[in-house]
């Protein structure tokens, strides 16, 4: 078990700054997830910890010892690759026992340990088979077993559950969490599945464009996203641009195209009057009503333009003005007709406020001709997210 410290890591690939000063201190036994959109540098960071890529600047330390120049095989790692990387010439048992053989463990002990691991990944009968005779999901589980066999000091996983179906993935997530806690192996996990990140991690490093956007526990990041991107990437979020009009006791008054909105003042960020700001609120904090019956501080009138049944909730898309649409989570027992005039309301305390910045990737910006429908392209819906958050 080791503490892993990433210190000011940076990497350029032919003029492109792929990693831009990444510093993370992974505690002993911690499960840290690198989360972020495709191409943000997750794999590159992981490969630096593994020793496959040397950083242009910065250091990688295990337990305070500089490992930046230590060859991979001396780092006591377990690793699950994005493409499994199982040895095609070895059967499953030999694949799983690879690290044990490399470490010179006696044969009998190896086969005992291999049997344990195959039972753990729920594939007790495949030891004799070759990787090419397994399904993608089975291969992935074998890759996980191979990485765990020798109880590594640091476990590195690059989207290890990507190929599994939902049920199996949930089972494996649970399994991984149990194994990791039991063995207390320091784990760095790469995923772009937000739900997985929320439910598995002790902490999440949310990355974007080679930088760490926010580092914190799943709750911290979900409840208190530090940037609009953090709010956008974890869960769902609605944005409304506005201008800071007035500072009241405990709240800012923001003028938007549809009226005044209130936001709680927080200490960490200071805004001044007249600032361009971005108001944000999550769909699950919104209430929708057909009549002008809502009171409360933040109310916007609108019109339902679309609704989407997602299983647990009905997702309404409410057009607030030409430029802005809101995603609202509604319940099934109360149906609202499309095109019906509605009111969207939420509590002041559920409102986030950010300095305004054009960012078309998250649906904020002048160039967007489409109404700003903000939707995270993840497989999981916002409410399952908050649920998985509640479970941790």
């Amino acid at each position, binding site marked *: 078990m080791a503490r892993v410290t990433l210190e000011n890591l940076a990497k350029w690939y032919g003029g492109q700054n792929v990693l831009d000063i990444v510093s993370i201190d992974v505690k002993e036994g911690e499960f840290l997830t690198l989360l972020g959109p495709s191409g943000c540098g997750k794999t590159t960071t992981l490969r630096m910890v*593994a*020793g*496959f890529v040397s950083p242009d600047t910065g250091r990688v330390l295990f337990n305070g010892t500089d490992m930046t120049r230590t*060859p*991979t*095989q001396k*780092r*006591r*790692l*377990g*690793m699950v*690759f994005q*493409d499994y*990387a*199982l*040895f*095609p*010439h070895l059967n499953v048992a030999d694949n799983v026992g*690879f*690290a044990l053989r*490399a*470490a010179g463990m006696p044969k009998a002990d190896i086969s005992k340990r291999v049997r344990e691991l195959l039972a753990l990944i729920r594939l007790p009968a495949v030891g*004799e*088979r*070759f990787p*090419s*005779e397994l399904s993608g999901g089975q291969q992935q589980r074998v890759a996980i077993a*191979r*990485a765990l066999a*020798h109880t590594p000091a640091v476990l*590195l996983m690059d989207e290890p559950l990507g190929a599994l179906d939902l049920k199996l993935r949930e089972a494996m997530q649970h399994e991984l969490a149990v194994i990791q806690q039991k063995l207390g192996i320091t784990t760095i996990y790469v995923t772009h599945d937000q739900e997985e990140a929320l439910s598995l991690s002790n902490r999440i490093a949310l990355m974007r464009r080679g930088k760490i956007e926010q580092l914190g526990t799943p709750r911290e990041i979900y409840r208190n996203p530090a940037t609009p991107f953090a709010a956008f990437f974890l869960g769902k979020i609605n944005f409304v641009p506005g201008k800071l009009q007035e500072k009241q006791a405990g709240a800012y008054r923001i003028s938007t195209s549809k009226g005044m909105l209130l936001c709680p003042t927080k200490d960490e960020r200071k805004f001044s009057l007249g600032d361009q700001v971005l108001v944000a609120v999550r769909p699950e904090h919104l209430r929708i009503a057909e009549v002008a019956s809502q009171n409360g501080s933040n109310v916007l009138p609108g019109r339902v333009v679309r609704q989407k049944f997602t299983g647990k909730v009905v997702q309404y898309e409410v057009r607030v003005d030409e430029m802005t649409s809101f995603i609202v989570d509604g319940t099934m027992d109360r149906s609202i007709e499309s095109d019906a005039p509605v009111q969207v309301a939420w509590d002041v305390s559920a409102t986030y406020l950010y300095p305004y910045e054009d960012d078309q990737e998250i649906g904020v910006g002048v160039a967007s001709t489409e109404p700003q429908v903000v939707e995270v392209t993840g497989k999981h819906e916002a409410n399952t997210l908050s649920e998985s958050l509640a479970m941790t």
Partner: protein
Amino acid sequence: MPVTLVDDPRPWRLLLIIPLAVSFVLFAFPQAYFIAASFHENLGYGRIGEEWTLANYVRVFTDPLYVGSLLRTIGLSALSASICLAIGFPVSYVIARMTSRRKATLVGLLVAAMFITPVVKDVGLIILLSQNGVVNQALSVFSKPLGWLGSEAGVVVGLVHFTLPLIVLLLGTVISTVPLSLEEAAHAHGASRARVFYGVIIPIVKPGMIAATLMVFNLAMGAFTTPALLGGGRVLTFPILIQRSVILDVDYPFAASLSTILLVSVFCLNVLAGYLMSRQGRFRRMASPAPAAVSTFVKKAA
């Protein structure tokens, strides 16, 4: 009524009839002709007798010159193929793992080098290896000038020089089928560089490596120019003896029997290598996972 399945490969196999016919006319027919000729008596002046006889073969196998030459040819070819493998493998590995644009340039140069006629290559070598050539001058610190030309060593150097570009190309293709992530996975799980090489790379590329080495071996077995020029008439390999019996002795049946023996021994050596290779169940399984899956299935059912 016959039902055609969408995945029925048989209609496509009909296309193979054309290459089969061409091969038959171009290869099988002349081969059969000279093999038949080897079982007849030489009547001199290129004429061939009517009677069937084994006399040519008896002569080959009772004359130490020919038996020795066959063994020497096999030995020199095996040696040069092994040297080619030893020198070629690291080079192929480096080229296969290259990612820059220089890779294409190097592969292009290799292809060009492969197509240079052995005559040209050998003339270059003769100059280098001659009594006062560059090589002997360089070695003069350690020893007296060595007689490379006209020696087996010279022939081996020539054969290696002749076949090296080919084996580098062949091995490069084989090695590049091994994903880099396999090496990384091995390193990550504690394998040293040597272990990765002998435990991962070699076992995976082994079938291709053996095939490439065999090709080089076969080329060396049939090589005429190189042993003729670098052997200077003193290293009598089988192809040289064949040439002599055709040109000097004008004994076509005997030449045909020598050729048949060369053909059969090369064929047998290749089949033997293929057999030894396929006895390693690993390779068979990798090449065709389906039968292995069936066998596990059968095992379970039993």
